[in-house]
């Protein structure tokens, strides 16, 4: 049952999601341009950049489970040993794939 108002509401929603994501993309540097640079702010930003990715990984693993945890753990170890992102990704994928195949087959 698709009516004209439904279509309009969907387009409005698409516009809103796009506007929110664009605003978030632009907001960080705008906010920081109002805060003067200082060694402490610099350390804050440096720690922030590594923390946001670490928090993202931890959150995904926490929502996923041991399979995701094992894949990330293996990828991290391979990265540490080889300094190669490609090898780390391949090792992580192989771990997750073997986990799926072994536990579902």
């Amino acid at each position, binding site marked *: 049952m698709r009516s004209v108002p439904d279509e309009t*509401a969907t387009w409005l929603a698409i516009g809103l999601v796009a506007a929110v994501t664009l605003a978030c993309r632009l907001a960080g540097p705008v906010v920081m341009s109002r805060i003067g640079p200082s060694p402490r702010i610099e350390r804050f930003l440096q720690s922030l950049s590594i*923390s946001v990715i670490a928090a993202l990984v931890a959150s995904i693993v926490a929502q996923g489970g041991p399979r995701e945890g094992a894949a990330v753990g293996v990828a991290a170890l391979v990265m540490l040993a080889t300094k190669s992102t490609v090898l780390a990704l391949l090792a992580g994928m192989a771990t997750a794939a073997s986990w799926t195949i072994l536990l579902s087959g």
Partner: protein
Amino acid sequence: MVKRNLKHDHVEASRPVLTLEGTVRGVRRLAPLSLFVLPFGVAYGVAAVEAGLTPLQAVAMSALAFSGAAQFGVLDFWPGPIAFGSLIFVALAVSARLVVMGAALSPWVNRLSPPRRLAALFLLSDANFADTEPALRSGERDVGILLGGGLIFWVTWVMGTAVGAAGGAIIGDPAMFGIDVVMVCFFGAVVVGMVAGEPNWRATIPPVLAAIVVSVALVSVLPLGWNVIAGALVGGVVGAFRAG
């Protein structure tokens, strides 16, 4: 006098730029990784059409919003009537980490001209941030790699969505090939690379641990997305107030 000139040269040399050459380099840097986004784009296209968007709307959503997390997150609001207030809140929750990433890039981005600033940030996402931030920190000057990385991800994301929305079936289960863990493994590898690449690497451990503990502790307490922001901010504060 000579000393002053040298200092001046140094400042000029380290001034960030955004060039076409850098953008092309960004495309190349992330092209291999972006291929793994295709199945997720397809999955989004299928899910969006199932939820009640038209194929054109599904593709428009991917092209305009360009955020897998936000787009999947708001699909629950279809079919309508759409609760616009809640929709904005969900989109904001999963996109707020882009504010944090933008802030982390501000030392470079804010030294560009306003039009270039806009170009650099327009396609900011998890993947090109994770690729660009460590590169800039280790001496890269061209913020174009951020734009280029975003462009190639945008292309594969929109293409995947179009295939899925047009009725393309999902070929096999991405989990079977481990494709579903590629991005999280990439982010994990980036964290390791950032810690290992830091001369004073011990100083990076407390913020990282704080970020992990806080984001995991709050994962079921806060609405999805805010736990990542909370973890990142606590990690940032721990780093800012460390001794030295």
